């Protein structure tokens, strides 16, 4: 194997595997592979090696605690404290009672509900939603009410919030309901539904849309490293957050919108969502 040019050809093989060859290089490589069984066996080994590494030593997710600390690095020193998220992160044990207090406040300030999401910049709201999603993952308590049944979750939310939230069943689409919780966004309680996909959780928060917003196509954003999709239908705006792959998250958003639309048309009578 010491014939001249061996090392160059070997490097070419790696470059081909790594998609680093231009069109001319690819053609040359294909010619070489077809002509040389040793070389094509080597190529097969390299491909097997790549598959093995990808499957057995995948890229790892940074721990959420680290992600949180990094978000804090950039945020805590900022002047105005936003939302109530800092105390919530710092002091998880008291969070539930805190949330309870906030929910009570929300009920007491019924009249202000129409202001939700209109007074603050939208990115502040998004950050609060993403923080709530992250917090829920770290605490191991993603939901306040645990139920796969939307007929349990909906009344629970309705009893705590002045606005009726749409709760749809997406089990058939592969996203079973895990439950619901109340997040605090722009100083007010908003309903958040939590759905599951394998080990991943998806939080969908419903906001009052600003003005009579027309239905908008889902917009993809990244907040704090999390993929976020925001869209609105009728007079409601929705924000979905998850660490699912973008494709799965899109599938979720599509299934959710279809189910909500169906619910509206059916006047709330429809049982299942496709």
């Amino acid at each position: 194997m010491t014939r001249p040019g061996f090392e160059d050809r070997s490097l070419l093989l790696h470059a081909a595997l790594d998609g680093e060859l231009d069109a001319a290089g690819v053609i040359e490589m294909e010619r070489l592979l077809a002509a040389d069984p040793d070389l094509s066996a080597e190529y097969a080994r390299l491909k097997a090696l790549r598959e093995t590494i990808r499957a057995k030593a995948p890229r790892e997710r940074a721990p959420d605690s680290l992600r949180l600390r990094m978000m804090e690095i950039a945020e805590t020193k900022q002047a105005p404290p936003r939302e109530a998220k800092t105390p919530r992160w710092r002091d998880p044990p008291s969070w539930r009672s805190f949330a309870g207090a906030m929910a009570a406040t929300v009920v007491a300030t019924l009249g202000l509900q129409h202001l939700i999401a209109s007074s603050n910049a939208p990115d502040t709201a998004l950050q609060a939603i993403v923080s709530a999603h992250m917090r829920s993952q770290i605490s191991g308590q993603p939901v306040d009410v645990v139920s796969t049944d939307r007929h349990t979750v909906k009344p629970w939310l309705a009893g705590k919030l002045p606005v009726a939230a749409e709760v749809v069943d997406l089990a058939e689409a592969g996203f079973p309901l895990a439950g619901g919780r109340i997040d605090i966004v722009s100083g007010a309680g908003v309903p958040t539904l939590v759905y599951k996909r394998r080990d991943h959780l998806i939080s969908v928060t419903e906001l009052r849309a600003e003005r009579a917003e027309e239905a908008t196509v889902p917009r993809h954003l990244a907040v704090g490293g999390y993929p976020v999709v925001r869209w609105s239908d009728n007079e409601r705006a929705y924000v979905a957050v998850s660490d699912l792959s973008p494709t799965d998250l899109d599938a979720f958003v599509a299934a959710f919108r279809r189910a909500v639309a169906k619910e509206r048309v059916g006047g709330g009578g429809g049982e299942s969502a496709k």
Partner: protein
Amino acid sequence: MVSETGRRNFAEHVLPHLDDAYSLARWLCGDATDAEDVVQDACVRALKALEGGAPVERPRAWLLAIVRNAAYSWLGKNRPRAIVLAGGAEEAEARADALETGGSPSPEAALIEMADRATVAAAIDGLPLAFRETLVMREINGLSYRDISEATGAPIGTVMSRLARARALLAQKLGTAP
């Protein structure tokens, strides 16, 4: 005090690549807790650079270069031998016997595919530092040759030969397991 610009750039250029930063740090330090410290240190450095208004064209390669530097400082303090081993002599030696691997029996693709997680991890861990970082950046972070070259400061030709060498060593280890 963190300025609004610094904060925004940090959210835009650093936070989306935390998983990459963490994965690289893990493979360089070999330990999850140490990797967190290294990433945190790297993020602080990154934020400082962004505050200073450093223009960032290729954020991922840029961040991984910082993570790599942070990891090297950490290794220098905690595992000085790992750094010494990564010197030029080792590479020359590895290059020399790269030409000889052709003589030993070729590992089978099928055998490589059967390796389990622990074996793969041990094989990657066993690579000399310069090869390991190049392999991890390519296969696990998915960086292009150009990005790896930028992140490691090595010319593209060196990146290519390190990568080829790293793969040859891995294939050898995984393909001829007991």
